[in-house]
């Protein structure tokens, strides 16, 4: 079997084209990221951020993509500001999300990927976000009790006039769509 030209760590390091590459190889495995992460602290991640960096460096692509860690990152950037080696760990989690969407490799029970795609489609169509459309992407994956609770919260917001009825849209929508097509040359769904 021939070695791929680009290692997994190289792919992930360079998935940050705006901010340059991310020096994952300088990680000293101190665990500050894991100790500081509020989601890892609650035991909700299958692998801690420290372990994910270690797995990427060991070229364990399948194990890394199968972890729920990066889709459970809330982007709070606490790890990023505390990393003694200057690794932008939260941006690395974004890079992993993009990679997993691109490869279509992520846990099937995750809500994050579908939610993200619906969100983007909503923006592409109207230029602004609209909560009721987004709700349809996750509500049906909830258990019955959770769904009832979510409906109660939504009703409360509606009674207080805090739920949008009509989807908002920007005025120069045609220009906006042409602008998007310059970046992502595909038709909207």
């Amino acid at each position, binding site marked *: 079997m021939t070695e791929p030209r680009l290692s997994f760590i190289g792919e992930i390091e360079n998935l*940050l*084209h*705006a*901010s340059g590459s991310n020096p994952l190889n300088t990680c000293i495995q101190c665990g500050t990221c894991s100790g500081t992460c*509020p*989601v890892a602290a*609650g035991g*909700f991640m299958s692998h801690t951020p420290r372990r994910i960096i270690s797995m990427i460096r060991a070229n364990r692509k399948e194990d890394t993509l199968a972890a729920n860690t990066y*889709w*459970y990152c*809330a*982007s*709070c*950037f*606490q790890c*990023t*500001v505390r990393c003694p080696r200057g690794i*932008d760990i*939260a941006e690395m989690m*974004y890079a992993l*999300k*993009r990679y997993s*969407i691109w490869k279509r490799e992520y846990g099937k029970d995750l*809500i*994050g*990927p579908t*939610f993200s*795609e619906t*969100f*983007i489609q909503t*923006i592409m169509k109207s*230029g*602004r*976000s609209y*909560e009721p459309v987004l709700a349809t992407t*996750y509500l049906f994956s*909830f258990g019955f009790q*959770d769904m009832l*609770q*979510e409906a109660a*919260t939504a009703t*409360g*917001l509606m009674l*207080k*006039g*805090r*739920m*949008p009825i009509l989807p*908002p849209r*920007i*005025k*120069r929508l045609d*220009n*906006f769509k*042409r*602008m*998007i097509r*310059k*970046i*992502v040359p595909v038709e909207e769904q």
Partner: protein
Amino acid sequence: MSRTYAYFPGCSLEKMARSYHESAMETTRALDVELEEIEDWNCCGATTYFNIDELLAYTLCARNLAMAEQLKKDVVAPCSGCFKNLYSARKHLTHEPDLRDHINEALAEDNLSFTGTSQVRHLLDVLVRDVGLEEIKKRVKQPLTGLKVAPYYGCQIMRPRKDHEDVENPRFFEDLMSAIGAEPTNFLLRLRCCSGALLITNREAALSMVRNLLDSAVRSGASIIATACPLCQVNLECYQAQVNSEFGTDFKVPVLYFTQLVGLALGIPRARLGIGSELVNVMPVLAGAGGGAGK
């Protein structure tokens, strides 16, 4: 002389956080700050665009920045998520000519161009640094004496780090609360994440994170939490009932925007600050503050 800024309200302030918009407009007006809304602004991308495509995420931010540049003003965002996205987009586009050229080609479809002349600011920072705490103190008509407030910074107003500022122990939110006569409490988890969009994508983790924050705020002796971000507000306030039913707790801590509290202290009536649209009733707490602030 009044200061003027290009105002980027963001999607949440259109409806879910309408009271943030209303109180931001009222409070800034009372402080001689003019917010001129960017016409036809689009969604900043929240935390979600970056999950799919980084280039598209920066392009959507760049369109807003380019429109602010046409107004020849700095951008002010009241939402911490919008602030972080617009700030990072401006930083990367300013430092990467290739990226800027690429995105400008797309912006040309809407007859716009990004050059980087408008800075990006958070509304809280504008009040603290541009208006200034001394000036705010001078204008307070009804100090919120006796109101114990947990100042909640959340994440993206502080992180990622913008420059060399102290991201571990900021004091400006506490100082602002003191300036309006309230008493900021020692809220240990004030910089901890509200769980953001995890309330949708990982409910179990999110509710436990919200519970920890509410617990820390209550333990600090606070009777109210002040926020500077619509997502923090919704997560901490609107999900309190779900936290209570999930964990058997009994939280009923009202959560207001800092603009609402500053507005009350400036003597603006409650209704004009959007007070009354909360799911956790704030009236009992306000009745005990500064002789019934903003009645």
